[in-house]
Protein backbone atom coordinates (compact mmCIF):
# COMPACT_ATOMS: atom_id res chain seq x y z
CA UNK A 1 0.00 0.00 0.00
CA UNK A 2 1.04 3.56 -0.59
CA UNK A 3 1.04 6.38 1.95
CA UNK A 4 1.28 9.13 -0.63
CA UNK A 5 0.32 9.07 -4.28
CA UNK A 6 1.38 11.97 -6.43
CA UNK A 7 -0.71 12.38 -9.55
CA UNK A 8 0.23 14.68 -12.47
CA UNK A 9 1.70 17.25 -10.15
CA UNK A 10 2.80 20.46 -11.83
CA UNK A 11 4.34 23.41 -10.04
CA UNK A 12 5.14 26.81 -11.44
CA UNK A 13 7.26 29.41 -9.78
CA UNK A 14 6.04 32.61 -11.44
CA UNK A 15 6.27 31.54 -15.08
CA UNK A 16 8.97 28.99 -14.53
CA UNK A 17 7.74 25.40 -14.73
CA UNK A 18 9.66 23.71 -11.92
CA UNK A 19 7.81 20.38 -11.57
CA UNK A 20 6.52 18.78 -14.72
CA UNK A 21 3.78 16.21 -14.57
CA UNK A 22 5.10 14.15 -11.69
CA UNK A 23 3.31 10.87 -11.00
CA UNK A 24 4.81 8.59 -8.38
CA UNK A 25 3.81 6.61 -5.29
CA UNK A 26 5.44 6.63 -1.89
CA UNK A 27 5.26 3.23 -0.18
CA UNK A 28 4.22 3.04 3.44
CA UNK A 29 6.81 2.42 6.18
CA UNK A 30 9.74 2.58 3.84
CA UNK A 31 12.38 5.15 3.04
CA UNK A 32 11.89 6.86 -0.28
CA UNK A 33 14.86 8.92 -1.43
CA UNK A 34 14.47 11.68 -4.01
CA UNK A 35 17.80 12.25 -5.73
CA UNK A 36 19.03 14.53 -8.46
CA UNK A 37 21.33 17.49 -9.06
CA UNK A 38 20.65 20.80 -7.30
CA UNK A 39 17.88 22.82 -8.87
CA UNK A 40 16.09 19.78 -10.25
CA UNK A 41 13.01 20.40 -8.10
CA UNK A 42 13.49 17.77 -5.42
CA UNK A 43 12.98 20.18 -2.52
CA UNK A 44 9.95 21.65 -4.25
CA UNK A 45 8.49 18.17 -4.64
CA UNK A 46 9.10 17.48 -0.96
CA UNK A 47 7.51 20.71 0.21
CA UNK A 48 4.52 20.14 -2.03
CA UNK A 49 3.75 17.06 0.07
CA UNK A 50 2.75 18.99 3.18
CA UNK A 51 1.69 22.17 1.45
CA UNK A 52 4.54 24.29 2.72
CA UNK A 53 4.66 25.66 -0.81
CA UNK A 54 1.58 27.67 0.13
CA UNK A 55 3.85 30.09 1.98
CA UNK A 56 5.15 31.42 -1.29
CA UNK A 57 2.38 33.19 -3.17
CA UNK A 58 4.32 33.11 -6.43
CA UNK A 59 3.93 29.35 -6.55
CA UNK A 60 1.08 27.76 -8.50
CA UNK A 61 0.22 24.06 -8.16
CA UNK A 62 -1.92 21.75 -10.27
CA UNK A 63 -2.51 18.01 -10.00
CA UNK A 64 -3.10 15.86 -6.96
CA UNK A 65 -1.27 14.58 -3.93
CA UNK A 66 -3.29 11.76 -2.36
CA UNK A 67 -2.54 11.20 1.30
CA UNK A 68 -4.30 8.06 2.53
CA UNK A 69 -6.66 8.44 -0.40
CA UNK A 70 -7.48 12.11 0.20
CA UNK A 71 -6.23 14.83 -2.14
CA UNK A 72 -4.47 17.35 0.09
CA UNK A 73 -4.95 20.04 -2.56
CA UNK A 74 -8.75 19.78 -2.32
CA UNK A 75 -10.18 23.18 -1.38
CA UNK A 76 -11.81 21.74 1.71
CA UNK A 77 -8.61 20.27 3.09
CA UNK A 78 -7.57 21.12 6.62
CA UNK A 79 -4.01 22.22 5.95
CA UNK A 80 -3.10 22.33 9.63
CA UNK A 81 -4.17 18.71 9.97
CA UNK A 82 -2.15 17.68 6.91
CA UNK A 83 0.94 19.34 8.30
CA UNK A 84 0.43 17.70 11.68
CA UNK A 85 0.31 14.27 10.09
CA UNK A 86 3.15 14.93 7.66
CA UNK A 87 6.13 16.30 9.55
CA UNK A 88 9.23 18.02 8.20
CA UNK A 89 12.88 17.90 9.17
CA UNK A 90 14.50 20.89 7.53
CA UNK A 91 17.88 21.22 5.88
CA UNK A 92 19.42 23.36 8.57
CA UNK A 93 18.55 22.67 12.19
CA UNK A 94 16.33 25.50 13.33
CA UNK A 95 15.62 25.37 17.05
CA UNK A 96 12.77 27.67 18.02
CA UNK A 97 13.98 30.52 20.24
CA UNK A 98 12.96 28.79 23.48
CA UNK A 99 14.31 26.21 25.89
CA UNK A 100 15.19 22.62 24.93
CA UNK A 101 12.14 21.33 26.78
CA UNK A 102 9.79 23.87 25.20
CA UNK A 103 11.08 23.06 21.73
CA UNK A 104 9.90 19.47 22.02
CA UNK A 105 6.83 20.38 24.06
CA UNK A 106 5.60 23.09 21.68
CA UNK A 107 3.84 20.72 19.27
CA UNK A 108 2.10 18.53 21.86
CA UNK A 109 1.10 21.66 23.73
CA UNK A 110 -0.73 23.31 20.84
CA UNK A 111 -2.36 20.06 19.86
CA UNK A 112 -3.47 19.46 23.43
CA UNK A 113 -1.67 16.13 23.51
CA UNK A 114 -0.47 14.75 26.79
CA UNK A 115 -1.89 17.29 29.19
CA UNK A 116 -0.25 16.39 32.46
CA UNK A 117 2.29 14.00 31.06
CA UNK A 118 4.04 16.45 28.77
CA UNK A 119 7.32 15.76 30.58
CA UNK A 120 6.94 12.08 29.74
CA UNK A 121 6.48 12.80 26.03
CA UNK A 122 9.49 15.10 25.98
CA UNK A 123 11.64 12.55 27.79
CA UNK A 124 10.54 9.73 25.50
CA UNK A 125 11.24 11.71 22.33
CA UNK A 126 14.60 12.96 23.54
CA UNK A 127 15.50 9.37 24.40
CA UNK A 128 14.32 8.20 21.00
CA UNK A 129 16.77 10.55 19.27
CA UNK A 130 19.53 9.76 21.75
CA UNK A 131 19.73 13.26 23.15
CA UNK A 132 18.37 12.61 26.62
CA UNK A 133 21.64 11.76 28.34
CA UNK A 134 23.28 14.87 26.92
CA UNK A 135 20.62 17.40 27.86
CA UNK A 136 18.70 15.98 30.81
CA UNK A 137 20.41 18.36 33.24
CA UNK A 138 19.76 21.48 31.21
CA UNK A 139 16.27 21.12 29.81
CA UNK A 140 15.56 24.77 30.64
CA UNK A 141 18.64 26.01 28.78
CA UNK A 142 18.19 27.73 25.41
CA UNK A 143 18.18 25.27 22.53
CA UNK A 144 20.48 27.51 20.52
CA UNK A 145 23.34 26.51 22.84
CA UNK A 146 23.44 22.97 21.43
CA UNK A 147 25.86 21.85 18.73
CA UNK A 148 24.67 21.45 15.14
CA UNK A 149 24.21 17.70 15.37
CA UNK A 150 22.43 17.99 18.71
CA UNK A 151 20.18 20.69 17.31
CA UNK A 152 19.18 18.53 14.38
CA UNK A 153 18.36 15.63 16.70
CA UNK A 154 16.33 18.04 18.81
CA UNK A 155 14.44 19.12 15.70
CA UNK A 156 13.77 15.46 14.93
CA UNK A 157 12.44 14.93 18.45
CA UNK A 158 10.29 18.02 18.06
CA UNK A 159 8.82 16.73 14.81
CA UNK A 160 8.18 13.25 16.21
CA UNK A 161 6.50 14.67 19.33
CA UNK A 162 3.38 15.59 17.36
CA UNK A 163 3.13 11.93 16.24
CA UNK A 164 3.19 12.35 12.47
CA UNK A 165 2.60 9.47 10.06
CA UNK A 166 4.97 10.68 7.38
CA UNK A 167 8.34 12.33 7.90
CA UNK A 168 9.83 14.53 5.20
CA UNK A 169 13.56 15.18 5.37
CA UNK A 170 15.01 17.96 3.22
CA UNK A 171 18.74 17.19 2.97
CA UNK A 172 18.65 17.00 6.71
CA UNK A 173 22.28 15.98 7.08
CA UNK A 174 23.76 18.35 4.52
CA UNK A 175 24.73 21.06 6.98
CA UNK A 176 26.19 18.69 9.60
CA UNK A 177 29.66 17.28 10.16
CA UNK A 178 30.13 13.66 8.91
CA UNK A 179 29.83 12.06 12.36
CA UNK A 180 26.64 13.89 13.30
CA UNK A 181 25.30 13.12 9.83
CA UNK A 182 25.87 9.40 10.35
CA UNK A 183 24.07 9.67 13.69
CA UNK A 184 21.01 11.21 12.04
CA UNK A 185 21.13 8.56 9.29
CA UNK A 186 21.10 5.79 11.87
CA UNK A 187 18.09 7.39 13.55
CA UNK A 188 16.22 7.71 10.27
CA UNK A 189 16.90 4.06 9.44
CA UNK A 190 15.42 3.09 12.78
CA UNK A 191 12.31 5.20 12.19
CA UNK A 192 11.31 3.12 9.16
CA UNK A 193 9.55 0.69 11.48
CA UNK A 194 6.88 3.22 12.42
CA UNK A 195 6.93 6.00 9.86
CA UNK A 196 6.85 6.59 6.16
CA UNK A 197 9.97 8.56 5.29
CA UNK A 198 10.63 10.72 2.26
CA UNK A 199 14.06 12.22 2.05
CA UNK A 200 15.71 14.51 -0.40
CA UNK A 201 19.43 14.12 -0.92
CA UNK A 202 22.06 15.05 -3.48
CA UNK A 203 24.36 12.46 -1.95
CA UNK A 204 24.06 9.27 -3.99
CA UNK A 205 25.94 7.26 -1.36
CA UNK A 206 23.49 8.33 1.31
CA UNK A 207 20.61 7.20 -0.88
CA UNK A 208 22.37 3.84 -1.36
CA UNK A 209 22.78 3.48 2.39
CA UNK A 210 19.26 4.42 3.38
CA UNK A 211 16.72 4.10 0.61
CA UNK A 212 14.26 1.30 -0.03
CA UNK A 213 12.83 3.17 -2.93
CA UNK A 214 14.47 5.79 -5.18
CA UNK A 215 13.06 8.63 -7.27
CA UNK A 216 15.44 10.32 -9.69
CA UNK A 217 14.63 13.82 -10.90
CA UNK A 218 16.21 15.91 -13.65
CA UNK A 219 15.26 19.50 -14.48
CA UNK A 220 11.83 19.21 -12.94
CA UNK A 221 10.99 15.91 -14.53
CA UNK A 222 10.79 12.48 -13.05
CA UNK A 223 13.29 10.34 -14.94
CA UNK A 224 13.13 7.01 -13.19
CA UNK A 225 11.93 5.48 -9.97
CA UNK A 226 11.76 2.07 -8.39
CA UNK A 227 13.00 -0.16 -5.56
CA UNK A 228 16.54 0.67 -4.52
CA UNK A 229 18.14 -2.67 -5.38
CA UNK A 230 17.35 -2.80 -9.08
CA UNK A 231 17.55 0.98 -9.38
CA UNK A 232 21.17 1.12 -8.36
CA UNK A 233 22.15 -2.21 -9.95
CA UNK A 234 20.57 -1.75 -13.36
CA UNK A 235 19.15 1.69 -14.03
CA UNK A 236 17.07 1.71 -17.20
CA UNK A 237 17.54 5.26 -18.42
CA UNK A 238 20.76 6.56 -19.94
CA UNK A 239 20.40 9.73 -17.85
CA UNK A 240 20.20 7.74 -14.63
CA UNK A 241 23.23 5.67 -15.55
CA UNK A 242 25.21 8.79 -16.30
CA UNK A 243 24.12 10.44 -13.06
CA UNK A 244 24.94 7.44 -10.92
CA UNK A 245 28.33 7.19 -12.64
CA UNK A 246 28.79 10.90 -11.78
CA UNK A 247 29.28 11.83 -15.40
CA UNK A 248 26.63 14.53 -15.13
CA UNK A 249 25.10 16.65 -12.36
Amino acid sequence: MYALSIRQLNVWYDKQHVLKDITVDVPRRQITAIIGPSGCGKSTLLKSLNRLLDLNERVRVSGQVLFEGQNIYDPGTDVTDVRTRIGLLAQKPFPLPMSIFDNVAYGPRIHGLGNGHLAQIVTAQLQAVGLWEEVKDRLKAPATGLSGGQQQRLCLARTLAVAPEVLLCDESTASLDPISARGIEALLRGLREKYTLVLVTHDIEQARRLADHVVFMWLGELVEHGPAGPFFAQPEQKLTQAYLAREIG
Partner: protein
Amino acid sequence: MKRTQLRKVKDRFFTWLMRFFLVTAAALLGLILLGIAWRGVGALSWEMVSQSPQGGFYLGKGGGILNAIVGSLYLALGATTLASLIAIPVVLYMHVYARGGRLANNVRLTLDIMWGIPSIVYGAFGFSLMIFLGLRASLLAGIIALALVVLPILARTFDEIVSMAPRHLRETALALGTTRLEFLGVLLRQTAPGLLTAILLAFGRGIGDAASVLFTAGYTDNMPESLLRPVASLPLAVFFQLSTPFPEVQARAYASALVLTILVLAISLLAHFSMTRLGRHVIR
Protein backbone atom coordinates in the same frame (compact mmCIF):
# COMPACT_ATOMS: atom_id res chain seq x y z
CA MET B 1 -11.81 16.90 18.19
CA LYS B 2 -13.31 19.74 20.19
CA ARG B 3 -9.89 21.24 20.76
CA THR B 4 -9.06 21.30 17.06
CA GLN B 5 -12.38 23.03 16.45
CA LEU B 6 -11.59 25.66 19.08
CA ARG B 7 -8.15 26.28 17.61
CA LYS B 8 -9.67 26.82 14.22
CA VAL B 9 -12.32 29.19 15.52
CA LYS B 10 -9.61 31.19 17.28
CA ASP B 11 -7.55 31.28 14.11
CA ARG B 12 -10.47 32.62 12.13
CA PHE B 13 -11.54 35.07 14.82
CA PHE B 14 -8.15 36.74 15.03
CA THR B 15 -7.76 36.86 11.28
CA TRP B 16 -11.03 38.73 10.97
CA LEU B 17 -10.23 40.97 13.93
CA MET B 18 -6.97 42.01 12.29
CA ARG B 19 -8.75 42.64 9.01
CA PHE B 20 -11.37 44.72 10.80
CA PHE B 21 -8.73 46.92 12.45
CA LEU B 22 -6.83 47.39 9.24
CA VAL B 23 -9.90 48.29 7.20
CA THR B 24 -11.25 50.68 9.84
CA ALA B 25 -7.94 52.48 10.10
CA ALA B 26 -7.55 52.62 6.34
CA ALA B 27 -11.05 54.06 6.05
CA LEU B 28 -10.30 56.74 8.67
CA LEU B 29 -7.06 57.68 7.01
CA GLY B 30 -8.72 57.74 3.60
CA LEU B 31 -11.37 59.99 5.10
CA ILE B 32 -8.65 62.47 6.06
CA LEU B 33 -7.41 62.85 2.52
CA LEU B 34 -10.89 62.90 1.04
CA GLY B 35 -12.19 65.33 3.66
CA ILE B 36 -9.38 67.80 3.12
CA ALA B 37 -9.66 67.47 -0.64
CA TRP B 38 -13.43 67.90 -0.58
CA ARG B 39 -13.36 71.02 1.61
CA GLY B 40 -10.20 72.42 0.07
CA VAL B 41 -10.98 72.22 -3.64
CA GLY B 42 -13.87 74.68 -3.33
CA ALA B 43 -11.70 77.49 -2.02
CA LEU B 44 -8.67 76.68 -4.10
CA SER B 45 -7.99 79.08 -6.91
CA TRP B 46 -5.11 80.31 -8.98
CA GLU B 47 -5.15 83.50 -6.92
CA MET B 48 -4.59 81.44 -3.77
CA VAL B 49 -1.30 79.99 -4.94
CA SER B 50 0.03 82.86 -7.00
CA GLN B 51 -0.30 85.87 -4.70
CA SER B 52 0.72 87.04 -1.31
CA PRO B 53 -1.95 88.18 1.15
CA GLN B 54 -3.29 91.61 0.40
CA GLY B 55 -4.73 94.05 2.88
CA GLY B 56 -7.68 92.47 4.71
CA PHE B 57 -6.80 88.94 3.62
CA TYR B 58 -7.78 87.62 7.02
CA LEU B 59 -11.11 89.41 6.76
CA GLY B 60 -11.92 87.57 3.55
CA LYS B 61 -10.45 89.98 1.02
CA GLY B 62 -8.11 89.13 -1.87
CA GLY B 63 -4.72 87.55 -1.95
CA GLY B 64 -3.19 84.14 -1.54
CA ILE B 65 -0.67 82.08 0.31
CA LEU B 66 2.29 82.24 -2.04
CA ASN B 67 4.34 83.79 0.77
CA ALA B 68 3.72 80.72 2.93
CA ILE B 69 4.41 78.26 0.12
CA VAL B 70 7.70 79.90 -0.77
CA GLY B 71 8.54 80.40 2.89
CA SER B 72 7.96 76.76 3.68
CA LEU B 73 10.09 75.69 0.73
CA TYR B 74 12.91 78.02 1.82
CA LEU B 75 12.71 76.80 5.41
CA ALA B 76 12.68 73.13 4.46
CA LEU B 77 15.38 73.58 1.83
CA GLY B 78 17.65 75.44 4.24
CA ALA B 79 17.02 73.00 7.07
CA THR B 80 17.63 69.93 4.90
CA THR B 81 20.83 71.41 3.53
CA LEU B 82 22.08 72.26 7.01
CA ALA B 83 21.08 68.85 8.36
CA SER B 84 22.76 67.09 5.40
CA LEU B 85 26.02 68.85 6.18
CA ILE B 86 26.00 67.17 9.59
CA ALA B 87 24.10 63.95 8.89
CA ILE B 88 26.00 62.70 5.83
CA PRO B 89 29.47 62.93 7.42
CA VAL B 90 28.11 61.36 10.60
CA VAL B 91 26.63 58.38 8.80
CA LEU B 92 29.70 57.88 6.65
CA TYR B 93 31.92 58.11 9.72
CA MET B 94 29.81 55.44 11.40
CA HIS B 95 30.18 53.09 8.46
CA VAL B 96 33.69 53.84 7.26
CA TYR B 97 35.80 54.83 10.24
CA ALA B 98 33.92 53.40 13.20
CA ARG B 99 32.28 50.40 11.65
CA GLY B 100 30.56 47.96 13.96
CA GLY B 101 32.14 49.65 16.96
CA ARG B 102 30.46 50.82 20.09
CA LEU B 103 30.80 54.40 18.93
CA ALA B 104 28.60 53.74 15.90
CA ASN B 105 25.95 52.13 18.09
CA ASN B 106 26.04 55.01 20.55
CA VAL B 107 25.60 57.53 17.77
CA ARG B 108 22.70 55.48 16.46
CA LEU B 109 21.14 55.48 19.92
CA THR B 110 21.60 59.24 20.21
CA LEU B 111 19.95 59.78 16.85
CA ASP B 112 17.04 57.54 17.84
CA ILE B 113 16.57 59.55 21.01
CA MET B 114 16.75 62.79 19.02
CA TRP B 115 14.08 61.43 16.70
CA GLY B 116 11.80 61.03 19.70
CA ILE B 117 12.30 64.57 21.02
CA PRO B 118 9.20 66.67 20.23
CA SER B 119 9.73 69.39 17.68
CA ILE B 120 8.34 72.00 20.07
CA VAL B 121 11.35 71.30 22.29
CA TYR B 122 13.65 71.99 19.36
CA GLY B 123 11.60 75.13 18.82
CA ALA B 124 12.13 76.22 22.42
CA PHE B 125 15.84 75.45 22.16
CA GLY B 126 16.05 77.32 18.86
CA PHE B 127 14.30 80.26 20.49
CA SER B 128 16.86 80.33 23.32
CA LEU B 129 19.70 80.06 20.84
CA MET B 130 18.18 82.87 18.82
CA ILE B 131 18.05 85.17 21.83
CA PHE B 132 21.55 84.15 22.81
CA LEU B 133 22.84 85.08 19.36
CA GLY B 134 20.88 88.32 19.42
CA LEU B 135 18.67 87.32 16.50
CA ARG B 136 14.99 87.97 16.10
CA ALA B 137 12.45 85.55 14.68
CA SER B 138 13.82 85.00 11.20
CA LEU B 139 14.30 82.60 8.32
CA LEU B 140 17.76 81.77 9.67
CA ALA B 141 16.51 80.90 13.16
CA GLY B 142 13.70 78.84 11.65
CA ILE B 143 16.17 76.96 9.48
CA ILE B 144 18.37 76.15 12.49
CA ALA B 145 15.47 74.85 14.60
CA LEU B 146 14.00 72.87 11.71
CA ALA B 147 17.41 71.42 10.88
CA LEU B 148 17.51 69.90 14.36
CA VAL B 149 14.10 68.29 13.71
CA VAL B 150 15.05 66.73 10.39
CA LEU B 151 18.64 65.81 11.32
CA PRO B 152 17.82 62.48 13.03
CA ILE B 153 15.28 61.57 10.32
CA LEU B 154 17.81 62.20 7.59
CA ALA B 155 20.68 60.51 9.41
CA ARG B 156 18.82 57.37 10.49
CA THR B 157 17.17 56.85 7.11
CA PHE B 158 20.51 57.22 5.35
CA ASP B 159 22.13 54.99 7.96
CA GLU B 160 19.62 52.21 7.25
CA ILE B 161 20.31 52.54 3.53
CA VAL B 162 24.07 52.39 3.97
CA SER B 163 23.64 49.34 6.21
CA MET B 164 21.98 47.58 3.29
CA ALA B 165 24.97 48.10 1.01
CA PRO B 166 26.52 44.76 0.06
CA ARG B 167 29.12 43.60 2.54
CA HIS B 168 31.73 42.65 -0.01
CA LEU B 169 31.82 46.23 -1.31
CA ARG B 170 34.14 47.17 1.54
CA GLU B 171 36.53 44.27 1.07
CA THR B 172 36.61 44.76 -2.68
CA ALA B 173 37.35 48.45 -2.42
CA LEU B 174 39.94 48.21 0.35
CA ALA B 175 41.63 45.25 -1.36
CA LEU B 176 42.34 47.54 -4.31
CA GLY B 177 44.40 49.67 -1.97
CA THR B 178 41.98 52.55 -1.54
CA THR B 179 42.19 54.74 1.51
CA ARG B 180 39.08 54.86 3.64
CA LEU B 181 38.20 58.20 2.12
CA GLU B 182 38.30 56.71 -1.36
CA PHE B 183 36.19 53.81 -0.16
CA LEU B 184 33.80 56.40 1.23
CA GLY B 185 33.46 57.74 -2.30
CA VAL B 186 32.58 54.27 -3.58
CA LEU B 187 30.07 53.83 -0.78
CA LEU B 188 28.49 57.18 -1.53
CA ARG B 189 28.10 56.26 -5.18
CA GLN B 190 26.48 52.96 -4.23
CA THR B 191 24.04 54.63 -1.86
CA ALA B 192 23.36 57.86 -3.76
CA PRO B 193 19.74 57.06 -4.74
CA GLY B 194 19.05 56.10 -1.14
CA LEU B 195 20.59 59.32 0.06
CA LEU B 196 18.28 61.23 -2.25
CA THR B 197 15.34 59.33 -0.76
CA ALA B 198 16.46 60.21 2.75
CA ILE B 199 16.89 63.87 1.83
CA LEU B 200 13.48 64.04 0.19
CA LEU B 201 11.88 62.35 3.19
CA ALA B 202 13.48 64.87 5.52
CA PHE B 203 12.43 67.67 3.20
CA GLY B 204 8.81 66.50 3.29
CA ARG B 205 8.88 66.25 7.07
CA GLY B 206 10.41 69.73 7.22
CA ILE B 207 7.63 71.29 5.18
CA GLY B 208 5.00 69.79 7.43
CA ASP B 209 6.53 70.68 10.77
CA ALA B 210 5.05 73.69 12.50
CA ALA B 211 5.99 73.53 16.15
CA SER B 212 9.68 74.19 15.62
CA VAL B 213 9.21 77.23 13.40
CA LEU B 214 6.34 78.69 15.41
CA PHE B 215 8.48 81.07 17.39
CA THR B 216 11.75 80.87 15.54
CA ALA B 217 10.64 81.81 12.04
CA GLY B 218 7.75 84.01 13.06
CA TYR B 219 5.16 84.90 10.44
CA THR B 220 4.76 87.60 7.86
CA ASP B 221 2.44 88.47 5.02
CA ASN B 222 5.38 89.39 2.83
CA MET B 223 7.41 87.19 0.61
CA PRO B 224 10.65 86.00 2.26
CA GLU B 225 13.25 88.69 1.68
CA SER B 226 16.26 87.98 3.81
CA LEU B 227 17.74 85.37 6.10
CA LEU B 228 17.33 87.77 8.98
CA ARG B 229 13.66 88.63 8.45
CA PRO B 230 10.63 86.62 9.58
CA VAL B 231 9.15 84.20 7.10
CA ALA B 232 5.72 82.60 6.64
CA SER B 233 5.14 78.86 6.54
CA LEU B 234 2.28 76.74 5.23
CA PRO B 235 1.26 74.87 8.41
CA LEU B 236 1.08 78.15 10.30
CA ALA B 237 -0.84 79.75 7.44
CA VAL B 238 -3.42 76.97 7.83
CA PHE B 239 -3.51 77.47 11.56
CA PHE B 240 -3.87 81.26 11.48
CA GLN B 241 -6.53 81.23 8.80
CA LEU B 242 -8.51 78.72 10.80
CA SER B 243 -8.29 80.90 13.89
CA THR B 244 -10.26 83.70 12.25
CA PRO B 245 -14.01 83.82 12.79
CA PHE B 246 -14.84 84.28 9.09
CA PRO B 247 -16.06 81.27 7.11
CA GLU B 248 -14.45 82.52 3.87
CA VAL B 249 -11.06 82.63 5.55
CA GLN B 250 -11.61 79.28 7.22
CA ALA B 251 -12.38 77.78 3.83
CA ARG B 252 -9.01 79.09 2.71
CA ALA B 253 -7.43 77.19 5.57
CA TYR B 254 -8.72 73.99 4.01
CA ALA B 255 -7.40 75.04 0.63
CA SER B 256 -4.01 75.80 2.17
CA ALA B 257 -4.04 72.43 3.90
CA LEU B 258 -4.80 70.81 0.55
CA VAL B 259 -1.82 72.57 -1.01
CA LEU B 260 0.34 71.44 1.91
CA THR B 261 -0.88 67.85 1.66
CA ILE B 262 -0.34 67.70 -2.09
CA LEU B 263 3.15 69.12 -1.67
CA VAL B 264 4.05 66.58 1.01
CA LEU B 265 2.53 63.66 -0.88
CA ALA B 266 4.33 64.65 -4.07
CA ILE B 267 7.66 64.76 -2.25
CA SER B 268 6.94 61.45 -0.57
CA LEU B 269 6.13 59.83 -3.91
CA LEU B 270 9.24 61.32 -5.41
CA ALA B 271 11.26 59.85 -2.57
CA HIS B 272 9.70 56.47 -3.22
CA PHE B 273 10.51 56.58 -6.91
CA SER B 274 14.01 57.86 -6.43
CA MET B 275 14.63 54.69 -4.45
CA THR B 276 13.20 52.32 -7.04
CA ARG B 277 14.01 54.01 -10.34
CA LEU B 278 17.38 55.64 -9.92
CA GLY B 279 20.78 54.16 -9.52
CA ARG B 280 22.60 52.86 -12.56
CA HIS B 281 25.73 52.23 -10.55
CA VAL B 282 24.01 50.40 -7.76
CA ILE B 283 24.83 46.77 -7.14
CA ARG B 284 21.74 44.83 -6.14
